[in-house]
Every structure is written in C-alpha cells, then in structure tokens.
C-alpha cells in the first residue's frame, strides 16, 4: 500500500485567537498538527500495519509546518514532504485541493490518501472531497470504520442519521471521524527519529504547476461581538427555592 496523509499546521485548540491591528493573532500559543489530522495519521498507520507499505505525510505550509510534520513522523509515518512556496499563502480550499491533488499524482501509485475531517483554523471540512473530485477517486469522507480487501474497500461513514455503509475500489480519499479511534501518542523512538529527519521541500515548480488562483477571499476578519452577559447568580434558600426562581426566570424569557 502506498499511503499519503495530508496534514496542516494550526494554532493549538486552546489558543486565545483574536484580531489585533487587522491581523489574526494567537499570542504565544504553539502551532500544532491539526487535531483531526492526528486521526488521519492513525488511520494511515493502521492500514500500513495491516497491509504493509509506506506512509508519507504531506503538508502545504511554511518552514514552521515541519514541526507538525515531525509529529506525524514521530507517530510512525515513514517520510514526509513539505510543499512550500511563497505563492501559497492564504490558499482557499479549492486551491489547496489543486496543490494536494498534484502532489498525490506526482507521488505516483498512491492507493489511499487520508485527510483530517476539518482544519480547526478555517473550519471548512471540504478539502478532502474537493481533492477526491480532482483526482477522480471515491470520496470516503467521515469514515468511522475502514476495511480493505484486495483492491476493494468498505467503510462506515458517519452521517446525521447514523452510519452509511459504502464500498468502493482503491485508490480512494478518506477522512476520519472521532469514532475511528483515538490517535496514538508518538513513541520515544519515534520522536528521536523525527527530530533527525530530513524533510524534502517541493515548490510549485516541482509539481509542474503555477499558483492556483484563489476564489474565496476574506478581506475582513473580526472579533465576534462580545457576549454582553452578566451572569445573574440565583441563590438563597433551599434547592427547591432556587429551582423555582430559576424556572421562573427562564420562563419569563419566553424562549421555551
């Protein structure tokens, strides 16, 4: 199996993200691998362990993205490629999908490409299906269970109504939901190996493409209107008295 896993570097989920002077800032919070992409790495490693082969992590990003890549290597990915080019700042998802599809094609002979369900910075969750569309591969997104049998794959996809059970032929694109199972922690050996790894960088030229045009632009980023709430603490008396008061307050707001 030749397996690719696409990862993005994002500010830590606990970061306080604000707009300062028109720019997005996350203070001194660390940049980390997108949490959903850890599930993608886990799924990729499980397939490799079951079927043999290699796992290559790919990330579009700046030099700093190497840290996110190293997390994937420390978890057990065999090697990695950083796609870095000054023309690739502020990509929208369709442009990212064009670059990732080109990289997957250039890697050649790929059987499975794993994605996170969503990047927690832009919160789009559409790059996987867009990349699948470009490649002409089945989009087995939001998978909770993946079973490969020869060149065929059967997945259980999480949908609002439960699970949809789908079969398809490889190669295919996958994204993972949390039900898939928790990602492993990097091992000590893995961390050592990752810290020494050479991560080759590809430019757009290496991919034989020019910078894809972005279509979506976001000229304005704002702090959300602050929730002007002052909490009224309901106290005094027995639990019954408190509950009576609280119920009356809630009913008075006429939202029930």
């Amino acid at each position, binding site marked *: 199996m030749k397996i690719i896993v696409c990862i993005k570097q994002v500010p830590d989920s606990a970061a306080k*993200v*604000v*707009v300062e002077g028109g720019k*997005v800032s996350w203070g001194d919070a660390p940049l980390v691998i997108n*949490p*959903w992409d850890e599930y993608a790495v886990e799924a990729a490693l499980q397939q490799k362990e079951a079927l043999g082969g290699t796992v290559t992590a790919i990330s579009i990003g700046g030099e700093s993205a190497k840290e996110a890549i190293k997390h994937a290597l420390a978890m057990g990915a065999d090697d990695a490629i950083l796609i870095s080019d000054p023309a690739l700042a502020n990509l929208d*998802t*369709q442009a990212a*999908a064009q670059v990732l599809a080109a990289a997957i094609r250039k890697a050649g002979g790929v059987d499975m490409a794993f994605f996170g369900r969503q990047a927690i*910075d832009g*919160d*789009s*969750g*559409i790059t996987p*299906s*867009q990349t699948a*569309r470009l490649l002409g591969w*089945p*989009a*087995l*997104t939001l998978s909770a269970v993946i079973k490969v049998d020869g060149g065929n794959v059967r997945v259980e996809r999480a*949908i*609002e109504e*439960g*699970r*949809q*059970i*789908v*079969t*398809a*032929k490889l190669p295919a694109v996958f994204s993972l939901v*949390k*039900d898939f199972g928790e990602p492993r922690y990097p091992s000590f050996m893995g961390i050592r190996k990752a810290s020494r790894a050479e991560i080759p960088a590809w430019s757009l030229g290496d991919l034989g493409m020019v910078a894809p045009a972005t*279509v*979506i*632009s*976001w*000229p*304005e*980023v*704002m*702090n*959300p209107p602050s*929730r002007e709430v002052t*909490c*009224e*603490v*309901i*106290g005094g008396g*027995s*639990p019954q008295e*408190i*509950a*009576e008061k*609280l*119920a*009356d307050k*809630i*009913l008075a707001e006429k*939202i029930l």
Partner: protein
Amino acid sequence: MKTWVYVDHFKGQVLPASWEAIGAGKTLGTVTALVFGSGVEALAKTAFTYGADEVFLADDPALADYRSEAYASTLSSLAAEHKPDAILFPTTTRCREMAGMVAMDLKTGVMVDVTALELQGDRIVATRPIYAGKLLTKETCSASPQIATLRGRAFPKPAADTGKSGTPTKVAAKVEALTNVEGYATTEGGVSLIDAGVIVSGGRGVSNNPTLTPPGGLDEKQTEIWRAQQGFALVKDLAAVLGAAVGASRAAVDAGYVPYMHQVGQTGKVVSPDLYIACGISGAIQHLAGMRTSKMIVAINKDAEAPIFKVARYGVVGDLYQIIPALTAAFKSKLGK
C-alpha cells in the same frame, strides 16, 4: 439574483436547515429549490410551500441513496446549463461534501457554514465563524456561481404556506458513481443536537456525588461510570420535561459516560439552541466553541469560579445532584406536565 437552494433529506426526511436556506435565498432573489432522490415528488411539492418559486426535481431510482459523485454531477450539469448566480446548501455532512465537489466542477469556491448573508451589488458577502467561533470573517467568492452552505438555526425558518403549490420541473439525473451503498446502520436516536431548540448538557461533574453508594463488586472505573449514570439520569429527566436534547462535554464522553454523538464543542457538535443548560461543565475554551452562540446559557456548577459562568445568563452555584431534580420538578409543575 437567481438563487438555487439544495434541499437535503434522508429517505424523504428533510433536514430543517434546508427550509431555512430557502428563506435565506428569498432575501437574495428568486429561489429554485433542487430536490434529488427517488420517489421524492412530495418533497418537491413541499418546497413550494416554504417559498420556492420553482423546483427542479431529479427523481431517479439511481439516486435512491445519496452518493456524492452522482449527486454532485447532477447538480453541476444543471448549473452549467442554467447558470444560477448563487447556490445555497444547508451545512450538513452530505452538503459540505457536495458543495465542495460542485465547486471544483464549476471552477468556483464555497463559503462554508455561513451565519449571515448580505448582498453588495452582485456579490454575496457571507459572515462565517472561523477558529471555532473565536473569530468571524466576511467572505466573498469572485467566481460564479457563488456557493455557500448555511449553518442550521442561523437563519429563520419560513412558515410553510400550504396554499402555495406548483409543478416541479423534472430534470435528468447523472447516475455515474464510484461508490456503492450497501446499507445503513443506525446509532442511538433521540432529539438531534443540531436541530434542538433546548439542550441540557452534562460534564465530568455529573459523576461527582460522594453520597451515593454504588453496588458492590465494581472496580474504580466501573464505579465512576455508575455514578455518572446516576447523574446523567437526572440530566435526561430534565431534558425530557423540556423536550430537549442531551449534550455532553468531551470529558464526559472520553470517560465513557455517554456516546460521542452527544459531544458538544470544537471536536464535537457546534450547536446554537435557544436555551443551553450546562450541568457540571467547567466551560473549557473547546467546549465554549461548540455552544457559545446559544441564545441563553444557564450554568449549574458548584465552583463559583468556573469559566462557564462568564458566558451564562443565569447561574446556580451548587450541587447539581440537588439542583437538577428540583429544577425538573419546578418545570414539571409550571409547564403543567
């Protein structure tokens, strides 16, 4: 502006955000609703009652199951022929996927999970939360059609007017697909979190009642889960009286108190009910990410310093084991149940 709205459904059950999207579409111009499936003519008729000016119906046995390739191709080829200015979808799992694919086919982009729309000339300016709602952006799409998925409960649902009717326009399905649907497995039912008007959520605190005596023979973990079940029973009773859905923090899910489908937050569901009651939840930033846009938040927590009180309109500093049953009883009598 010529606006299309895709109506998402599962075996004829429409996800309500679809009707909200028709309402939002009407604020932009004329609305053509798109109904795809097999044996779904009745839905096409319903779309008129929610305000669609026209309905395109692709009714084909090959569309009986949602398959992204076939559905996206059907929509893309229609759009290539009729050239709408905008295509709106509800933000659902199927529609995120379809919208993304259609955008690739038509060489345009998607504004995902939008919470407000306005029109500037012929461009839609879409407001959407990013960084789990920590920030908002205003986005535009420079290509045509402009595609957006709209967050559920962010736009008012139009009232159905049963007096309105029309004849759907039959359109051809593109049936080629790369996937085969073997079937479905259901997970636990209950009120859907995303559509719920009221949510009662429990956190790690629900397992914290030292006065309860667990049955003998349980190990430490089993005892914790047993305690949590007693606590969640209270949460569920309150939810039942309010017709509410049950939510949970990640700590409660990870500890095995309730299944993941109940998780609210950055890595769970993003919800926006009219009323959110948080019980034994501290209010970590990742939890707030999933519920901070609720119209009214009520917190029950024994720690007066818990950050959840910063977003709450009403708070009770106390033991949830005492407060929740009393609150359930109070609502029962006040609501006449």
